[in-house]
């Protein structure tokens, strides 16, 4: 359970930071609204990702799912930063 927990914790954190940054860049709201939205959404995504990762049978499956989602999200972010 420890490898799965560590993957879920850090994988969820990385994914939430990445999606939160995408949200900040994509949403058309005022800065203060985006900051609040980012903060709340960040934690919700983190916990949601942890639930998703923990639902896998093994730490390996959990890790693969984590990397896939993270790569996708980082790719979106890279695109957004480059086209900003």
């Amino acid at each position, binding site marked *: *359970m420890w490898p*799965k*927990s560590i993957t879920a*914790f850090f994988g969820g*954190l990385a994914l939430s*930071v990445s999606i*939160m*940054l995408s949200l*900040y860049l994509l949403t058309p709201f*005022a*800065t*203060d*609204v985006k*900051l*609040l939205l*980012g*903060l*709340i959404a*960040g*934690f*919700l995504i*983190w*916990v*949601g990702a*942890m*639930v998703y990762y*923990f*639902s*896998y*049978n093994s730490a390996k*499956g959990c890790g693969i799912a984590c990397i896939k989602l993270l790569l996708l999200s980082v790719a979106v972010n890279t695109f957004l*930063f480059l086209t900003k």
Partner: protein
Amino acid sequence: MNTRTLNAKMPNTPPNKVIKNLTESHSWIGIIISPLLFLIFWAGAVTLFYEEVKQWAVAPQFPVSMQQPAMPLQQIVEAKLALYPFDYQEHLMVQMPSHYDPYYKVYLDLVREEGNEDDHGEVASLLVDSQSGKTVANKEDFFLGDFLYQLHYNLNLPAGTYIVGIISLFFFFALVSGIFIHAKKLYRHFFQYRTDKNRRDKLLDLHNVVGVMTLPFTLMYALSGLVFNLAIVYQIAFVIFIYQGDQDSLFKDAGFTLFDEQRIEQPLDMTPAYKIIAETRQRDDFNISNVIFYNYGDEAAIIQIRGENLSHFSQNDEFFYRVKTGELLNKTDINNYNVFRKGREIIATLHFGDFAGVDVRILYFILSIAICVMIVAGNMLWLDKRSLQQNISARSIRFVRGLSVGGCGGLVLATAVAFLCERIIPASISMRSDVMVYAFVISLVATMLLAYRVDSKRRYLAQVIFATVAVLILTLLADWLMFSEQIILLWHDGFRAVVGVEVGIFLFIIAGIWAIKTLSANNETRVAELTAEPALD
């Protein structure tokens, strides 16, 4: 939640494994975080009455004569400045008296010693009689309320804020996974509590019923706990990726006004500042909580007035004035606010339950205690299940059992001991807050250690509750033997929180006696069952 749908999205996971995996992780995470989670909820439940506990601790020791004419604030502040080596490069803060608290709290940053100019210097925190202007004590001398509050949000440990944040995160996970696990029965078994079934069913129903009924409350607590304690994670991300390292810009966008004007070393009479404060205090719809002076006594002096707007829900107003000209430099009110800051304040208001009367906080208290019970019931479920499994070592079961009984019971006893210490240690003893903290820690550790040495956990729990009840009775007796006149005087002056806390302690004593009786009755039933079994055989 439809588990089939969830499984269909995950081809690698065999059917129905999602719920099994989540159940395993729910109980595993739950058992790891349970001691600290109990501590956080227990300390948080008591902290809901922070102001009342503070008044109970301090006011009988130093009763304020409300009939006496009040000394002007300027005279009080300048008298303190004359007494202490205040560092005029730093700010000076005054917390205002309230209907809970008849004292000014004056915070003075003292001049740093030579060679330590870069360190944060010593701060004098003075508790000042609002009528006579006399310094009655150092604020830290009456530490009980702050100690429990700090225990709640940072465990009184250096990196405690982040530990509490991580516990909140895993608590949030336990809630969401609990919803998934219990989803099918969420409505059908909403109020199900089977008293006629075996112990495991009863515990499971207790865990589920409390979990479901407190769900909106617990979700709010988990999220707000994260916002207060772990926002640093996203703050760092924002500063690095969005603000290119400029933290001040982030703070500005988040609505936190920063004034960093330097002194110009031209003296200024501060009377206009006190006029502004006096005018603001006369507003019916505004309750000043504190005033901060920047560049005191200098032409560059600025005052910051903060308080609660009583006409609106969770509206904390803030005004900055230049003292020399009386110009309003910046304001935050209902018509002019930052969404991030306002959102954070609403979250804080919901977290502390201070948006209505004491009745809401009593409701919050009951819910918090129910969650403490849910945590203990969860641990007992884990122990019952693991006791039947061959691959779990007896040592780990004994460890968790001792931690559950000794840790949770010990915390309740230690809190009672801290209350007694706060009451009976004379105010003149300079280390009184340290003595109170040591007494808390010693009683907690002793209860935990003894829990591993006693075989009958049920009997031990009854003994811990008995000790708690005895300590609380002593506290009430000490209250009335030492301060009966002052308590009556405070009641007449409208400071009723002292009696309110005593009523709370009394109710706790009643609840404790009931718990001891229930545990003893269960013990007798079990003994009768055990002695009857051979006869039946």
